[in-house]
């Protein structure tokens, strides 16, 4: 059974999101001034966590969207 890409996307963005949120909370005045006064790491991190949540939830609710590639619906070789 081939893994589900939604789980990979959800996992990667969850890890990135956590890293960026932590980085965003630790950002000093210099980083914030560079980004036009926006805590851009924090906001991007939050955005990534939301995206990760969407992918993981979608996989949960519709687990069979990616069929097993060895299924018989795949035509001939």
């Amino acid at each position, binding site marked *: 059974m081939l893994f589900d890409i939604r789980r990979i996307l959800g996992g990667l963005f969850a890890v990135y999101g956590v890293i960026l949120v932590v980085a965003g909370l630790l950002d000093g005045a210099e980083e914030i001034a560079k980004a036009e006064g926006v805590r*851009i790491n924090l906001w991007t991190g939050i955005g990534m966590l939301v995206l990760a949540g969407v992918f993981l939830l979608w996989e949960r609710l519709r687990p069979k969207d990616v069929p097993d590639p060895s299924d018989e619906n795949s035509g001939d070789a």
Partner: protein
Amino acid sequence: MLALAPQDLRLDVNALDYLILALYFAVVVGIGFAARRAIRSSSDFFLAGRALPAWITGLAFVSANLGAIEILGMAANGAQYGLMTVHYYWIGAVPAMVFLGIVMMPFYYRSKVHSVPEFLRRRFNPATQLFNAIAFAVAQVLIAGINLYALALVMEALLGWPLWLSVIVSAAIVLAYITLGGLSSAIYNEVMQFFVIIAGLVPVVVLGLIRVGGFEGLGQKVRESVLGDGGLHTWSTTASTDNPLGASWIGIVFGLGFVLSFGYWTTNFAEVQRGLSARNTNAARLTPIVAAYPKLLIPVVTVIPGLVALVLFSDLGKDGGPAYNYAIPLLMNEFLPNGVLGVAVTGLLASFMAGMAANISGFNTVFTYDIWKGHVNGDKPDEFYVRLGRVATIGGVVAGIGTAFIAAGFSNIMNYLQALFAFFNAPLFATFIIGLFWKRMTPWAGFWGIIAGTLAAFAVYIPYRAELIDLGTDLNASFVAAGAAFLVDAIVSVAITLVTTPKPEEELRGLVYGLTDVDLKDDSIAGDKAWYRSPVVLGSGALVLAAAFYLPFL
């Protein structure tokens, strides 16, 4: 306004950014290993088992074209030509993608071919297949090498990596995941790359817009820039060629919107292959149509940064200043703190590799099926061809590395080659469109049409490059070359058809419009009948949106 010297391109990356980069490539190689376990037949390796849903193949379709050269180049065009750059998306891509999905994909998918050249063999003859397969294989290796060289140049400028290190490391990663997992791992990585590059570019756009005072401030500053008011219009200045793009509406509609775009999107196997890996006919048809929606919005993350860079950096594109191609890296350097910066760098690197992986996965399929199996040795067991595909991948990557080092020595020649590939597919499109709708078109008409069309493209383009004929701008030259290729192909195809024998109708079932193959069973699955999975409804929606998006920028 800021003045910049070239050394300012170096990004201030730290351990956090490298952590983000390393995580990404660990996942990429991990996907390769996981996908390897699922490969049991050549269909698994070359067509991802024909099992993927439309949203995955659709995102892979758009991503295969969203290489870093495309992203950096379109931002450069945004800075140089202004809003007219959106023509490359809204008229130069979306209509052709919808046409591919609604009209052409059923023929590709339902004929069960593995590649575009194989379709040419079924519709015409083995000679046509071989010519197209060799031309395609050579072009893909050269483009992969050009991609690799461009990647190395950008990495040298941004991160200070030596040229050879970038080339070897990126080639090794691409080699690892394609050899292991074949097309599935290429496609999964394309989907991942799509989200990472967008995540890296959106902060650049948001912060850039804040700096210049939002859309209103940007518009006002563009009007005051070298681009002037012409940079804010798409159609109203196209009655003549006196506009930033140097093209009239006739050139834009027929040159860009028809011959160049339909040629590229409907016959380029590196794109079409994504559709062939879909799980059924409906998903295959939806592939380019699902891709059309993100394609409509990509100008937000390419053209806007280009315009922001134009108004912020006074020496962009001028002598002694940074090249237009560095518009996005300059903004990354200007706005992004460590962390998001790592995401943006990862996105750029990933999109370079995804572009190269698309070339290599197209190459190994065509080499294995159309050159080796079709013309050298066709009756080995299935496992042999999986192994051959892996060997071809290694060969393709090694040849790509060679091309990259040649490109480093002769970068001008590579620029011309790249321009040539832009209209390489125009004659092929003429052959397809005639062959699909005219059952009388003969096998040898297919062969000679493509040869004559390809020669016509060269015959226009080489004298233009040698400055023997004057065609105005480069863009106009490619319109003329593609148009000539299309016309010559069509004329030769019709002429040869009239003097040669057509194929019997029995052999053309399922390959020509109106001759349906009665043996093919309906492969639709539950839910395919819903309106939101209808290619015609979704395709029309994309066309309407493309037209509507133009309205505020006429």
